[in-house]
């Protein structure tokens, strides 16, 4: 009696590498969806067409609609200026970006700018966007 050897199963497509790449892309897009704001709360910057291009680096102060502050993404309270000074000292940064929500009252924003100006930090800018988010 003749017995036929069973045909070898064809090796499958190597899908694991594809899954790895897809996972990387997925994690990247999940992270980058929050990185643009650099704030632990929602900040929709005001719209202005005459803004200049913003260089990288610097310290970012985020102001929420209700006046809550964050320095470089970390929530701060009354001691916000100490956090800014520490960030400036550690980074050697000279540019201070005030990333305020478009509907935040100016009483939450302008005193910050005045305090920074008094401290000799002349490069204080307000973050704007040329197109509505």
């Amino acid at each position: 009696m003749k017995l036929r050897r069973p045909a070898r199963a064809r090796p499958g497509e190597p899908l694991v590498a594809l899954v790895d790449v897809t996972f990387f892309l997925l994690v990247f897009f999940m992270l980058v969806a929050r990185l643009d704001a650099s704030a632990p709360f929602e900040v929709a910057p005001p719209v202005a067409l005459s803004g200049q291009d913003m260089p990288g680096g610097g310290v970012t102060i985020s102001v929420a609609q209700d006046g809550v502050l964050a320095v470089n993404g970390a929530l701060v309270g009354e001691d916000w200026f100490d956090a800014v000074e520490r960030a400036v000292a550690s980074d050697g940064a000279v540019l201070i970006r005030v990333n305020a929500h478009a509907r935040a009252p100016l009483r939450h924003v302008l005193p910050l700018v005045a305090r920074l100006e008094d401290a000799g930090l002349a490069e204080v800018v307000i973050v704007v966007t040329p197109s509505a988010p």
Partner: protein
Amino acid sequence: MSLARLRRPLARITLVPLIDVLFILLVYFMVTSTYLDLDMIPAAASDEGLQAPAGGAGQGGRLLLQIRADGSVALRGQAMTPEALPGALAASDDPALLSVMILPSGEAPVQALASVLDALSAAGVGQTRIVRLEAQP
């Protein structure tokens, strides 16, 4: 002669449904991610900005521009929208020689200030200064 039945190979874990779900999530995050084009407007002016330079801005006089709590603008007591500012300024003076002091209400939104600075820049105003609010944040 007895023949042993061949053992069935173990079922493979199929990856295709996993990849399907991953691709759907990937496309979702790619579509919903927002990439804002961020620009900046200088907020702190140097002290010498207050002094009228010879032959430059400030010779055309000073204007006080008020930003009200509702975001509207008052120029010489006349209420208008920030978008109407360039026309109002161009009709009366040479904007390049003007020095504009902005007096904002503390309740006005940041968007109102940005719109005013935008309009003044579009009108070619030579010098802009924001009057300070002394209240604590």
